[in-house]
């Protein structure tokens, strides 16, 4: 079972697709959670996910905006997609019928 932050990271990376790399994932998580995401948490979690085979990472191209430094690119693996889907399904199941979930659904519709 994934941890909460692992799920956030996987989801952000999946949403970004080919543009998923450290800074972009961090920004995506901060925007979604409205909370700061530390680089330490991001990179150590990325390592853990890579060790579990849920993401693959490689060094990408350098850009002038980054001072000529390369990006650490991220891709969610098939196993990562399955784990994230399982986590999401578990959250949906466990949230069924609770007040905040029904209020959220009502607001969405």
């Amino acid at each position, binding site marked *: 079972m994934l941890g909460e932050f692992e799920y956030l990271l996987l989801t952000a990376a999946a949403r970004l697709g080919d543009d998923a790399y450290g800074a972009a994932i961090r920004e995506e998580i901060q925007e979604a959670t409205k909370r700061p995401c*530390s*680089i*330490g948490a991001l990179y150590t979690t990325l390592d853990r996910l890579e060790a579990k085979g849920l993401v693959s990472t490689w060094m990408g191209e*350098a850009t002038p905006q980054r001072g000529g430094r390369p990006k650490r690119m991220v891709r969610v693996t098939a196993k990562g997609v399955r784990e994230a889907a399982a986590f999401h399904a578990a959250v949906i199941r466990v949230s069924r019928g609770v007040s905040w979930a029904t209020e959220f659904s009502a607001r969405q519709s």
Partner: protein
Amino acid sequence: MTRAGWRLIEAMARCLAHEERDAVLGDLAEAEESAWAAARDVLGLIARRQASLWRLWQPWVALVGAALLAGGAIRAIGWRLAADLAMQISTYAKYGVRFENGLTATQETVVLLCLAAALAGWSWTCGFAMGSLAGRAVWIPGAVFGVVMLNGPRIAVLLLIPALMGTRAGLRRRVLPADAAGAVAAAILTITVLVIRTGGWYAHAHEVWSGGLWRGQPPSLPAWQLLAAGWPAMWLLTAAISPTKGKVKTT
């Protein structure tokens, strides 16, 4: 971010692995964070990386086995060299003659040279073991080794030079080729045997000098000190010839 702030962040990031350093500095440049926020981020990542390194056994062996145990033994043996040197130098300075301890001048020179060579060799292998075992966590065992030496005789400060050279070599190579490791271990073993043999000259000379009164005195260097100072050389050889080639998980 100011240029000075960025320089500071870059200096701190040197504690990270090369690729990670590039990725992190690039991310920070892109995020255009303040120097304080960037410093906090980099320090946080360094702390997490260090904490994960210390979950492995290797840095602990480097700290306890090399820095404290071997370092402590080297320092203790260093006292012996310092005491002998000080006695000879002060006697010569005061009276213009050599301090008479039962040894000839040649014997005395050989004893001191063997001891100095052994201390330098043990310090190098101890530094190598620290660098090889602890990897990026080496700064803690290294600092402890430095403190141990600085609390010893003044001459022990000189031993920081071979120890630093050994640490650099250990960080770069992690494991020596088997033939090089064999040569280093053989050299350390030879010099240790010479230290034991020449140490015996003292015991004999003192026995003669005291008219047999000091017969049966224990050897001047306890076996535990020699073993503690010498184990890094044996480890270096074992790591080189083991099937896993001493592979460690440290980054």
